[in-house]
């Protein structure tokens, strides 16, 4: 196959929030930059974020980045790196105000400032009471943000390659990253994008689960490419199940609903969160709320004929507030649940939502891997930001509104790192190895020649069902052990997927087969990392690590206060320490404590 070569200073893969934010940094610095995206930029999944972006602006209640940092460390169940968390919380006001200057249509307070609402796990005074920290544009914050970032890139004349799918990372023998191979969907042609710097902003992989709030496109492409290229994936056992997906449909209902006063109720009409989180109640951290819901359902207190969901009630709010602050939610509820939330509560169920783990990076957005004695040595020419990256600011559980903040702060920081490294002359254009495109071409050739085997649809479905059953909201020792065997079987069958469609033009069957390769890497990483972590922490809670006086909430800091690194080649696991020391002397380390809300 003929492979065209294109050369850039920098290639960014992904044009969601993180990719677009990074692109602005590079375009404005005058670097020759290519942004590749499978979908038109405003179709990226950032568009679906609803409730807001965290920043301690203090527009409606007193707030400090110290409090935000405390909440984030506690929310992460102390697995988050405190240097990266300090960096993110300190930078929040700057990046949110920048976004306002770009034209983002935030809602406003009466005195004209950015409107802020309460959100789960965010508090005043180190956990004392809810704080108004989530900067919002109605319940369409992600849409408003993504469009504002795209628009700013139009102004900056960023060069996009729209509807191009990156296939594989290109590394030389020394491990330097030299760009990617990519497939133009319209023509089916493969190109090599040769670059001094490569930034991955490829988003999440929530489609590995059967029931997910994620878009069809969230297939972990960046993670798959990284895993195949020999770089480990970090903390992949930690997946967030959002408490409020529409029962049956999986579509997200923002936590902002509870921020505006929404209440979760069981079949008896009880506000059950009062029992699990007496202080923050319905606004406790997401992992806590999701587990409480499943506990209620398992106790027979679920609603409906199958008693398999609970209710999210906002009927006590005024219709004016609902129309003004939650118009999109009302629309979703009517369309996907058949319920007008002004009149009746919305049926909801915990649904896979966010991947806390990902490509290991530091707070500068540099991708890091173990090298010699250094457990976090930067990979030359390689950066990552947003949901695909693990900085790690979310640790074992992410707080709502911290994902939009993450993509702004680390998108910008990755961009700044590239510009700084470029200006310092550290990013030379290293020669392409002869075999730069071979891996991608071999994958395509296999799909081309494979006449029988497993259908992509069947393999994907067995992967999704396996993940859902064996690595869900609650995890069980035996199910995890069995899950590892099952997922390795699924991975084996994925090696012989076949497609009937052999057309070169906009071949979505081929695209889905290639995406499945990436999802399989993520699924293996998740199951193997989860089976190995013999404690409960954040979103990873297992039956054989229960709440005891010795190990509150089942957490075992003695043995498991460490990040997981999974290597695809041999399913090997390594571990590296959590950064318990903040970046500066401006703040004391947040000491380990039992997590209650």
């Amino acid at each position, binding site marked *: 196959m003929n492979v065209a070569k294109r050369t850039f200073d920098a290639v960014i893969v992904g044009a969601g929030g993180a990719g677009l934010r990074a692109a602005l940094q590079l375009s404005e610095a005058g670097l020759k930059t290519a942004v590749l995206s499978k*979908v*038109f930029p*405003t*179709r*990226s*999944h950032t*568009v*679906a974020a609803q409730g807001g972006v965290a920043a301690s*602006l203090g527009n409606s209640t007193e707030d400090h980045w110290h409090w935000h940092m405390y909440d984030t460390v506690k929310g992460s169940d102390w697995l988050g790196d405190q240097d990266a968390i300090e960096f993110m919380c300190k930078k929040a006001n700057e990046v949110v*105000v920048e976004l*306002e*200057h*770009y*034209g983002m*249509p*935030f*809602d*406003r*307070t*009466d*005195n*004209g*400032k*950015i409107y802020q609402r309460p959100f789960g796990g965010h508090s005043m005074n180190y956990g004392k009471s809810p704080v108004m920290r989530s900067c919002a*544009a109605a319940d*369409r914050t992600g*849409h*408003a943000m993504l*469009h*504002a970032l795209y*628009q*700013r890139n*139009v*102004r900056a004349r960023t060069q996009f390659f729209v509807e191009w799918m990156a296939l594989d990372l290109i590394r030389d023998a020394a491990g330097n990253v030299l760009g990617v191979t990519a497939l133009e969907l*319209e023509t089916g042609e493969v190109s090599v994008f040769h670059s001094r710097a490569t930034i991955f902003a490829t988003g999440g992989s929530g489609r590995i689960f059967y029931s997910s709030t994620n*878009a*069809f*496109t969230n297939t972990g492409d960046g993670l798959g490419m990284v895993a195949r290229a020999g770089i480990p994936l970090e903390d992949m056992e930690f997946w967030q199940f959002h408490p409020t997906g529409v029962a*049956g*449909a999986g*579509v*997200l209902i923002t936590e902002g609903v509870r921020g505006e006063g929404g209440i979760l109720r069981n079949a008896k009409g009880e506000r059950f969160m009062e029992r699990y989180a007496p202080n923050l109640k319905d606004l406790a951290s997401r992992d806590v709320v999701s587990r409480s819901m499943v506990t209620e359902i398992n106790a027979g207190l679920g609603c409906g004929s199958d008693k398999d969901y609970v209710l999210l009630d906002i009927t006590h709010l005024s219709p004016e507030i609902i129309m003004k602050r939650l118009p*999109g939610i009302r*629309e*979703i509820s009517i*369309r*996907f649940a058949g319920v007008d939330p002004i009149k009746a509560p919305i049926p909801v169920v915990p649904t896979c939502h966010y991947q806390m783990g990902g490509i290991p990076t530091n707070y500068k957005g540099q991708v890091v891997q173990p090298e010699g004695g250094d457990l976090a040595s930067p990979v030359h020419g390689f950066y990552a930001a947003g949901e695909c990256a693990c900085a790690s600011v979310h640790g074992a559980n992410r707080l709502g509104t911290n994902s939009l903040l993450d993509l702004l702060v680390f998108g910008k920081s990755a961009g700044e790192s590239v510009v700084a490294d470029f200006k310092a002359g550290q990013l030379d254009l290293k020669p392409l190895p002869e075999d730069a495109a071979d891996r991608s071409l071999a994958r395509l050739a296999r799909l081309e020649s494979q006449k029988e085997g497993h*259908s*992509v*649809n069947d393999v994907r479905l067995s992967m999704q069902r396996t993940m859902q059953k064996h690595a869900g909201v609650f995890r069980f020792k035996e199910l995890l052990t069995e899950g590892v065997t099952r997922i390795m079987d699924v991975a084996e069958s994925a090696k012989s997927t076949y*497609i*009937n*469609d052999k*057309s*070169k*033009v*906009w071949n*979505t*069957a081929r695209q*889905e087969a290639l995406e499945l390769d990436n999802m399989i890497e993520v699924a293996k990483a998740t199951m193997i990392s989860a089976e190995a972590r013999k404690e409960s922490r954040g979103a990873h809670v297992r039956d054989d690590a229960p709440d005891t006086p010795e190990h509150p909430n089942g957490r075992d800091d003695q043995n498991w206060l460490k990040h997981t690194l999974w290597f695809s080649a041999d399913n090997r696991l390594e571990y590296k320490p959590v950064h318990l020391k903040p970046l500066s002397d401006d703040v004391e380390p947040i000491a380990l404590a039992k997590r209650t809300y």
Partner: protein
Amino acid sequence: MQTSKRTVHFKIYRYDPDKDAKPYMQDISVELDSTDKKLLDAMVKLKAKDDSLSFRRSCREGVCGSDAVNINGTNALACLTDVDGLAQPIVLRPLPGLPVIRDLIVDMTQFFNQYHSVKPYLINDEPPPERERLQSPEEREELNGLYECILCACCSTACPSFWWNPDKFVGPSGLLNAYRFIADTRDQAASERLDDLEDPYRLFRCHTIMNCVAVCPKSLNPTRAINKIKEMMVSRMV
């Protein structure tokens, strides 16, 4: 609403330039489960049956704007359309007026060119303040019904004026987005924006047919935005 197992019949526009000399309509049926409620659910099932069926989709909740198609003659998002409310056979065609790449996938270059032509970004050359620019809730309210556009192209490809002049007429979506910035108190380029649109084609090809309003999946009203632009042009002349 019927939600049990049932078989649904389709007539779908098919064209693969790699193998088809010309487009044709494919008759195909699919059995749906009780959980398959939206047209997109049915299309995903159809694709599992015939993997060559090509269409765009992503968020499946009506906010990314990928899966706009022509359904029984009307433009809409497949993910927001109830499959059981549709007359059968359900006729699916690509959005009208744009070149077809393959099956239900159209080339949206002209649509996006028009969007880009209105300078869809905030223009304010004053040095930004340290904190946010202030805007009253009432001023912000002016952007409601404008900023929510998802660029799905349902409106512009339902507009006869856009069919005739996709290269010269900005179209309902582009004009709605132009007005989104004209109406923003933080934007300083309203006058230049009006100058740019004062042209027999760019704005004035809108003949208030209002197909755009009828099909917008976000219930936006491009015609109203276009009329506001026209009013501003008149008022600055007198």
